[in-house]
């Protein structure tokens, strides 16, 4: 099975974010660069499926050179190939277009993504890729198994409120993998170092032949960025732990 996993390198935390002059992006200092959390689970799922079905796993990202860090993690965890599309797009629509085109060229049976990136928090890119490629998809997937009939997978996904749906879905398909589906493995430092020496295929946007479709500016203008205004209505209880405990337990007794 040919599995492609879309991963994103995201800042662990950001310092001094500022809106660019044209309002098309936010510039910031990144505290660290990590692989987006749900993408880690997507990668883990891909490697597990490779063990069961055989085949190969390709990790792919769209971003600047620093985003290769996420690909190196993928290679260190035994992904077979790594591909980076060199771009500084930040809007989901453009990212999905370049990812979908690249994946089409690579070939695939199954595409895995995470559910939401921690930086943009939009939860769009996976499904936008599926739609562009005309694939059936499932979001917030917690389990992937061999399907009841050939060429299918049995997929469990969350519907919210503690309810899950089990689907039989025809390959090729795209699945957005939820966090917590499995325990994450850790790549030993030695393997991470080795991975950094492995080749990453770099693709320029104009190689994809979709320049006409890519917008020069995103479909939005960022006006401002600020820490969320939190109106705390909470009555703050001060004091040492036993003083605090005495007040709180009284509140509990009153409230029951």
């Amino acid at each position: 099975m040919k599995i492609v996993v879309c991963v994103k390198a995201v800042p662990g935390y950001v310092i001094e974010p500022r809106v660019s002059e044209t309002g098309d992006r936010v510039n910031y200092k990144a505290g660290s660069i990590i692989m987006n959390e749900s993408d880690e689970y997507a990668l883990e799922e891909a490697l597990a499926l490779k063990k069961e079905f055989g085949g190969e796993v390709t990790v792919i990202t769209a971003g600047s050179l620093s985003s290769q860090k996420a690909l190196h993690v993928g290679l260190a965890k035994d992904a077979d190939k790594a591909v980076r599309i060199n771009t500084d797009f930040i809007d989901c629509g453009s990212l999905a277009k370049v990812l979908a085109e690249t994946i089409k060229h690579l070939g695939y049976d199954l595409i895995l993504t995470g559910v939401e990136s921690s930086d943009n928090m939009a939860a769009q890119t996976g499904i936008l890729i599926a739609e562009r490629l005309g694939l059936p998809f499932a979001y917030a997937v917690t389990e992937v198994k061999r399907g009841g009939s050939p060429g299918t997978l049995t997929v469990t996904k969350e519907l919210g409120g503690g309810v899950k749906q089990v689907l039989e879905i025809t390959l090729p398909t795209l699945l957005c993998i939820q966090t917590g589906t499995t325990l994450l493995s850790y790549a030993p430092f030695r393997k991470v170092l080795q991975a950094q020496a492995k080749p990453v295929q770099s693709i320029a946007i104009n190689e994809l032949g979709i320049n006409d479709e890519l917008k020069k500016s995103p479909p939005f203008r960022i006006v401002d960025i600020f820490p969320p205004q939190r109106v705390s209505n909470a009555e703050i209880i001060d004091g040492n732990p036993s003083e605090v405990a005495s007040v709180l337990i009284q509140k509990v007794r009153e409230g029951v």
Partner: protein
Amino acid sequence: MKGNILVLSEQKEGELDNITYELLTKGRETADQWGTKLAVLVLGDNLDSLTKVLVSSGVDIVLVADHSILANYNTEVYCAVISEAVRDFKPSLFLLGYTYLGMEVGPAVATRLGVDITSNCVDLALSNGKVTVTRPMYSGTFHTKVEVEGGLPYIISFQKGALPRQVSSTKSASVVSVPVGIAESTIRSKVIDLLQVASGEIDLTKAEIIVAVGRGIGDRANIQMLKDLAGALGGTIACSRPVADMGWLPIEYQVGISGQTVAPKIYIACGISGASQHIAGMRDSSTIIAINKDPNAAIFSTAHYGVVGDLFEIVPALTEEARKSA
């Protein structure tokens, strides 16, 4: 661009979900400012009673897609029907929830209409002829104000619980039937089962006192400390998503959009930062107590009582006090 506004309704077991009322409130306000019409789209099977509720929910038009094929949610079918309904109605604004349904359907409908979607918003305002939304970035540590641009309709999804809910029931809407035409042979994903997370020994929704634990607990071994407090109070333990993800508590203990929605008399949040997904599952608790070492934690916006401090000091003191006064 001041055209009609369409809201996607969500329901569960025949009752409208709160997100529907929240979207209708914002939709009504915006339609009144523009002097345009507000419509709501509802999908399902045997929708007579839901339609009746929607007709008097302050909207002008109720679009009803009533068909047996829509009885159970199938993403492919819902995406197809919703896309067609939006295409036919031609709204300027299409509002939906940043919910499981909206996260699946939103980007797909946008693609099919050849437009973009602005997702995960917490507010919408009109200024200088622009639609401006507020949405989180960077794990919610920042909010951005964003002017929506691009083609119509603007498709915008909102977090559950973010918008105020205040629906007038004075209007009487017209009802329009939406065609449901999809060939079953084209459907590539078949729903074979629905699983309710086993509540087993616990039913969080019936608990009067809940002691909830979040990422701040640091390690699985520390869960016992919270179990002790729950025990001393005669309550039950619960958790936020990261704790269940790490396998420290089974998923049936998880409170939030993906887990249980609870409204106990007492909810004690320990080491829970207060991500919107968690808040949506516990905001209706009668008394909310939050213990967190970060004074800026979002949980303090929802809590009635707050303690800024180390839960490893506070929780044992609480347990001792609870045992003393039991």
